[in-house]
């Protein structure tokens, strides 16, 4: 493909930690690059990066480019997009992959616009056709009711990958790669957006995105107070509580606990959906779960189509005995 070569992944590595999502991007890029017999570049921004750079190699990168500059220490959309655009031009990458995260989804369109290239966001797969040398990213549309596969041959491309769409490679510390510090000067006048402060929500217990068990309540729960029964169940199972969009919009769970297309993507061993109808947008965030268990009083609810276990009934009657029996079985 002429001037372009290599697959580049980009992410922030804050506090020098390589995020699980970055490892997924590396696995995806590695597969594509091996097909093309080309290199995987990993661009990481942050401050004081060291361990994360070596980790990026261990998880699949050939070249790790890092711009260790105070201005890139924390996320700023202007600074990040200016710096990333320059590095992608320098590396002449044929494909740039970011995560569909609060940073990736914000930076990808900015960089694609500046590069003037095509962009496909929120992909669940990126396939490659060896014969035609084309990239085939798959992006769910209509909330996931339909999947659309695109085809790009001979052109530069930016893609964002949905979280948990691919497993990371196993860590391999014997893997060799180059760590390349790069210099990026950004004129302060180009920074139009000022990040004033960041407010972190306090979380108690297990993080939703890593929890082995997720107990999610939907509109059918009916009130914030009633979520205490879901918390009780989650605690017994060392899990976390999530909510559908109505549950989050009504403030029954924090906004950061929303599961779905526009919330968190989770893939626990056990996903217990209570009073959740199973809209395509909700399923987008939990379909990777190993076992979906549903409690819903509507036997025709869509959630039962994807659930391995189901109880048709009013959760107020089903849940107490379920929780009690579990407590008994788990002692």
């Amino acid at each position, binding site marked *: 493909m002429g001037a372009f070569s290599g697959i580049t992944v980009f992410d922030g590595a804050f506090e020098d930690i390589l995020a699980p999502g970055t490892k997924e991007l590396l696995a995806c890029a590695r597969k594509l690059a091996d097909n093309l017999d080309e290199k995987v570049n990993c661009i990481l921004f942050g401050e004081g990066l060291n361990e994360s750079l070596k980790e990026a190699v261990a998880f699949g990168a050939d070249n790790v480019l890092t711009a260790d500059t105070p201005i890139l220490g924390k996320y700023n959309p202007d600074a990040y997009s200016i710096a990333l655009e320059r590095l992608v031009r320098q590396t002449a990458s044929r494909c740039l992959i970011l995560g569909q995260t*609060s940073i990736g*989804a*914000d930076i990808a*369109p*900015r960089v694609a*616009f500046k590069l003037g290239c*095509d962009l496909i966001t*929120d992909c669940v797969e990126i396939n490659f056709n060896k014969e035609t040398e084309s990239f085939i990213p798959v*992006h769910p*549309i*209509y*909330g*996931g009711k*339909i*999947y*659309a*596969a*695109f*085809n790009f041959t001979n052109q530069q491309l930016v893609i964002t990958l949905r979280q948990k769409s691919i497993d990371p490679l196993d860590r391999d510390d014997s893997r060799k790669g180059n760590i390349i510090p790069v210099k990026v000067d950004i004129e302060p006048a180009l920074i*139009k*957006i*000022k*990040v*004033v*402060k*960041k407010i972190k*929500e306090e*979380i108690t217990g297990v993080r939703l995105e890593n929890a082995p068990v997720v107990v999610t309540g939907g509109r059918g729960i009916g009130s914030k107070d009633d979520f205490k029964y879901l918390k009780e169940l989650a605690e017994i*199972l060392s899990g976390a509580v999530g909510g559908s969009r109505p549950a989050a*919009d009504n403030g029954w769970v924090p*906004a*950061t606990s929303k599961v779905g297309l*526009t919330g*968190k993507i989770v893939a626990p*061993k056990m996903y217990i959906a209570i009073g959740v109808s199973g809209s*395509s*947008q909700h399923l987008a965030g939990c*379909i990777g779960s190993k076992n979906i*268990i549903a409690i819903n009083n509507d036997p025709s609810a*869509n959630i039962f189509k*994807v*659930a*391995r*276990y*189901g*109880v048709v*009934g009013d959760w107020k*009657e*089903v*849940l*107490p*005995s*379920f*929780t*009690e*029996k*579990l407590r*008994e*079985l*788990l002692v």
Partner: protein
Amino acid sequence: MGFHIIVCAKQILDPEGPASGYGVNSATGQIILPKGVPPVINPYDENALETALRLKDIMQVNITVISMGKNLSKAVIGKALAVGADNLIFLQDKAFENLDSRSTAYIISAGIKKLGNYDLVLAGRQAGDTDAAIVPHFIAGFLDIPCINLVKKVEIIERNIRVERSLPDGYEVLEVEMPSLLSITGGGDLRKADLQQITDAGKKPVTIWTAENLGIDASDLKQTVWQKIFVPVHEVECNFIKADSPKEAGAKLAIKLREDRII
């Protein structure tokens, strides 16, 4: 002198409709859309409009709603006028169908440029049909103004915009100067209009601008091209727990999960 806020609103099929009507025509490879699902204003665009209306509640604001498409319905988008928008503009042309994000953003930005002066552009974080979340950023790109996405709260202080942007572990506060574009997530459900407002809105005119009015050459526009579309299959066989009472079913579910070594 007040502020001029432009809200971008897309007409889409109600995304809350059941999955069952969606399919793929195996002969043509084209999408089959469900019958009987009504068109609506994209829900996140409604949040953007509500955000504008809340600013209008407390300060002098003029709201223009701008919508791009081929067959736009005043009965659908006109709701914006009933709840308090001042002007409605349709960017409508037979060439404006099934376009990719860049062409869509190009047309909308042409409409905004034609409007001339504005202080703030709001759009929903993503449309519930294409689910791409690209157009807001690209509109800002064409207008060469700053863009902040995932905004859940907006405050205007003189000519400064102060926003809260949602993050997976909380939110951040950002500041930017006017004019800027914000893509909105949340910010409240769109208020309801009363009968009088609906009647009055019916009498308000809609301005229609075509490709020609906007000085757009249809041959510069690019359509979305799919290699293939398909209906994903996620279905599994559900083990329904049978019992005499819901209470008993709850206990039996726990026992079944233990038997199957799920717990």
